[in-house]
């Protein structure tokens, strides 16, 4: 068991790790701006700066999923994918690199399928209820479990136990972390998010997506991600183990909170939304494979 004070310096060290791409910070700064004001050239410049990530963008853009075959420049890749989406995905793959290969305590593709699934469901849900910034929901969904990566790196042995026990008992991962690490990915994720100057709403999501009632800012966003996270975990986009629980989404506190500002929620066909997730499964797997599947170095 550890205290947060103990892990704090180790999270600080994450910054100086050689594996953390230098573009993380400028990219998050960019993401904090109003999407209309983000300049295409700026994104292209940042992406080109890191050859691995540039190659990744080309891979995504050239995947049949986007219907593009011959995207050769980073610029056309960014255009093909759309600025906001590519930023989010690029950021995801940057963040991915804080975890060295031998530290992955769960299957990396499973983890990113969960995150990307959550991103897609969050933006979908945001659109359905009329939340003003679905792309923000996408980004927050993608990054909500940042703390899991932190935990894998800074307290690998304890986290392995936590995950193992969760597998065995079917309890939620954050409960198991609480028992076996002494803190959860929400707390450790928040520290790194602040250190990396993530926007305050994304940080709120990272900190409170498992306890929405304690969120003091960006509450609707936190609630959207909370519900999407639950939905994904119930639809084979979880953490790779059977979570023995029944979820009454409409009886959830996050639901009540959202309904106040977004009455359209009440009219939503939740079962249909869930079935849509099943329909999006292939797309999710494809994107995750394109972005996160380790592949022999791509020619520059």
């Amino acid at each position: 068991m550890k205290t947060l004070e103990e892990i704090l310096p180790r999270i600080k060290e994450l910054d100086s790790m050689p594996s953390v791409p230098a573009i993380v910070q400028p990219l998050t700064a960019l993401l904090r701006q109003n999407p209309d004001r983000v300049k295409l050239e700026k994104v292209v410049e940042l992406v080109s700066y890191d050859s691995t990530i540039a190659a990744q963008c080309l891979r995504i853009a050239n995947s049949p999923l986007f219907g593009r075959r011959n995207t050769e420049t980073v610029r056309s890749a960014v255009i093909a994918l759309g600025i906001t989406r590519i930023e989010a995905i690029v950021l995801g793959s940057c963040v991915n690199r804080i975890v060295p290969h031998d530290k992955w305590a769960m299957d990396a593709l499973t983890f990113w399928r969960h995150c990307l699934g959550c991103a897609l469901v969050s933006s979908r849900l945001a659109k359905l209820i009329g939340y003003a910034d679905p792309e923000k929901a996408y980004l927050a969904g993608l990054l909500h479990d940042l703390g899991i990566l932190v935990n894998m790196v800074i307290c690998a042995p304890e986290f392995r136990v936590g995950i193992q026990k969760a597998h065995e008992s079917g309890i939620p991962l954050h409960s198991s972390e609480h028992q076996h690490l002494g803190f959860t990915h929400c707390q450790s994720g928040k520290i790194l998010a602040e250190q990396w100057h993530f926007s305050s709403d994304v940080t709120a999501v990272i900190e409170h997506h498992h306890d929405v009632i304690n969120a003091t800012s960006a509450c609707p966003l936190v609630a959207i991600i909370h519900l999407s996270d639950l939905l994904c975990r119930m639809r084979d986009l979880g953490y790779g183990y059977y979570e023995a629980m029944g979820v009454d989404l409409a009886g959830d506190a996050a639901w009540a909170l959202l309904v106040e500002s977004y009455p359209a929620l009440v009219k939503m066909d939740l079962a249909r939304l869930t079935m849509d997730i099943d329909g999006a499964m292939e797309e999710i797997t494809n994107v995750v494979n394109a972005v996160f599947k380790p592949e022999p170095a791509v020619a520059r």
Partner: protein
Amino acid sequence: METGIAKAAAQPQSQDLKDPAYLKIRDVVYQISGIYQPEEKLYLLASRCARRMSAVKASTPSEYLDYLTVRGNREAELRLLLNEITIGETYMFRSPAQLEALRNVVLPQILQAKSALGFKRLHLWSAGCSTGEEPYTLAMFLLEEKERLLSGWTFDILATDLNDNSVVAAKAGIYGEYALRSTPDVLRRKYFKAHDANHLQVGEELKSLIRFDRVNLNDDSKMTFLKGMDLIFCCNVLIYFDLSSKRKVMQHFYANLLPGGYLFLGHAESLYQVDDRFHLMHFPGAFGYWKPPLGYIGGGKK
């Protein structure tokens, strides 16, 4: 109900389809069973009628309509027609995620609540059981849990369908590879006996748990008396019902379930706007509809 259509007798002529008598037959079927064939699906109905028409030697749809509405044995004929219409696709262990949810979440919850009240008996209902695959699956599932979750408990399954032929086949319990394709070998050996080269027959242990009956879900007088259920399975049955007949069935199901009980539908079915008293519960890979116990205060549900 999707299968077997192609097999069903001669295709009616396309001009025949425009015969307004088909609309009337459709309405009769709907009145009785709740099954509604929209105009564009009328050809399905027509192909199902074709067989009965040749059996009674009716040469036109309107002549056949008479058999269903004014002739002396019209009720019997209607039943025979319904037997043609309601041929259901089904197999054992069709919804593994549903069974996992039962094992890991639903049953533990129900057992705990019931034993707190001193009850040790469970009642399950497979409503629209077709040829019996679903109730036998449930019976195997329960027996497999007998030493574990269900130790000290007794249980029974009511299995009903509208189709007489299906109920007869269900009682016989003889299955080929198609029905058994997802049934693990251990269970085949444990609960079945050889029938012929290509078929197995369910053994007494399974049969003794199930009571088969013909019940029309659209028949209020029968539905009212099927109370006291812990779990109702009505999978892939209501897909051909229209909204108002679905609503009616749901009202019955709600009343038939004990507080704290669950209704399970097919994996692609939604109760959206059908009945909002049920709570939609998500389990890994499956849904259930929950009738909350008295006094349950759900968070956000308005």
